[in-house]
């Protein structure tokens, strides 16, 4: 019984975890401008994840009254991935760190180009069977690059401001943990399913859910901070 409850909590974590930052977003008055993309991400992710979980739950109940493309939530994960990258790219640009700013400005466009090439020539965006490992892993790699350059900037910046007072520090920390843990999950997820390792793939997705909760908590911490940190 307890295991069933825990399982349900884990399965629905992609929805309820977002309620944590949402609570702080709704109560925080006048957050700094650089948190606008993060705020947008939380709202969009909340809607997309509700959709993904509802589709998953309907599939579990064996309901098939929806159109073909709505019977799989993979396309929602793909959309989520694209939106996450674009919004967090905007977030890193808004942080206004005088470091690799040209690379940071170009990367979202490069990502869109790769996205178009991939889904025009190689993969189906609305693939029923599996999500796009290529898309999600590329997104994780780019976001990881953003996070690492953020930390490098902190070490070379000579202001010596306390870490917790650095703009966006908690968001970047949550995001770096999320993308670092998920890079290999995303990279091998399709492959795991192809290799008939579905049980392992389902279990490893729990790691994704745990780090997603961590990401949500970190975003919430950042929104809780006063004085614009």
């Amino acid at each position, binding site marked *: 019984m307890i295991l069933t409850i825990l399982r349900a909590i884990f399965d629905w974590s992609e929805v309820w975890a977002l309620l944590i930052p949402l609570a702080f977003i709704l109560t925080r008055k006048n957050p700094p401008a650089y948190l606008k993309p993060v705020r947008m991400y939380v709202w969009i992710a909340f809607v997309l994840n509700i959709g993904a979980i509802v589709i998953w739950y309907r599939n579990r109940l064996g309901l098939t009254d929806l159109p073909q493309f709505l019977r799989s939530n993979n396309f929602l994960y793909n959309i989520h991935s694209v939106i996450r990258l674009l919004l967090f790219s905007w977030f890193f640009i808004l942080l206004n760190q005088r470091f690799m700013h040209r690379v940071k400005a170009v990367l979202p466009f490069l990502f869109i180009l790769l996205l178009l090439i991939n889904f025009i020539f190689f993969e189906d965006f609305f693939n029923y069977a599996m999500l796009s490992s290529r898309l999600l892993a590329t997104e994780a790699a780019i976001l*990881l690059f953003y*996070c*690492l350059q953020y*930390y490098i900037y*902190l*070490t070379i910046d*000579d*202001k*010596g*401001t*306390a*870490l917790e007072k650095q703009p966006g520090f908690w968001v970047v*920390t949550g995001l*770096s*943990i999320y993308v*670092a*843990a998920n*890079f*290999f*999950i995303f*990279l*091998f997820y399709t*492959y*795991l399913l192809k*290799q*008939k*390792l579905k049980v*392992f793939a389902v279990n*490893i997705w729990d*790691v994704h859910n745990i780090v997603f909760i961590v990401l949500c908590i970190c975003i919430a911490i950042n929104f809780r901070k006063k004085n614009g940190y």
Partner: protein
Amino acid sequence: MGTDLTFLVILGIAVMLLMVISVLLAVVFSQRKKNQHRIAMEKLREEQQNLLIEAAVRSEETERHRIAETLHDEVGAILSSAKLHLLGIKTVSLDERDKSLHDKGSELLNDVIHKVRGISHNLHSNILKEFGLNEAIRDFIRKIMQGAIIKATTELDDSYQTENPDNDISIYRMLQELMNNILKHANATEFIISSTHKDNELDLVLFHNGNGLTQEQFEELRYRKEGLGLKNIQNRVIMLKGTIHFAGGSEGYRINIHVPVTTSPKITPQVQSK
């Protein structure tokens, strides 16, 4: 193959997480080091600022003494000599008009001698050194209230004994400046200066019923060019490691000065003896 793949995925996740944790730790240590450096630099800057203030205050005090001595020893001596010469004139042989001019000149000369002596004593801190801060304040109040319509009261704590005369010079100069400001700008009719001394802490309160300053106005004015007096007050407060607070209410305005009286720098004026 399946075991290898699961191992690879788990290893990959572990390595990536370790990498992020390592980077985070590196950032934390680097930031901590920078923070320590920043604090050390700020402390050094503060010390340098205090040294500069101390030097400025010392040179101001030295200059006051030099001017006071020049006024007393040179200008005062010449004026006294001029008075002697004037008194040497036989007025019996003078007609009414010349006698009147002689008397007027003598009167003006007396006034000048009196004023020069007053300025010289004001600039000099002899009374402060000989009789202490409280007596110097009382004497100053007596002098500035002569002819003024303001009612002044002193309620000074006589348990305070000077431990460092240099400290007292700074406190005295601050009070001089503040009282002059009150006389010039406040249009007050009542003025009370009180002090309490406890546990090596001296608290002075200047209260008046005129138009005074609030803390915000003080903060604003002391950065203005013309606010030299207030800037000097602030410098002396910093040097004494004390605090000053301005507050206003319906009853009147109050200036609270808090000074620790044992931890003070040496600012003995360096006056060369002639």
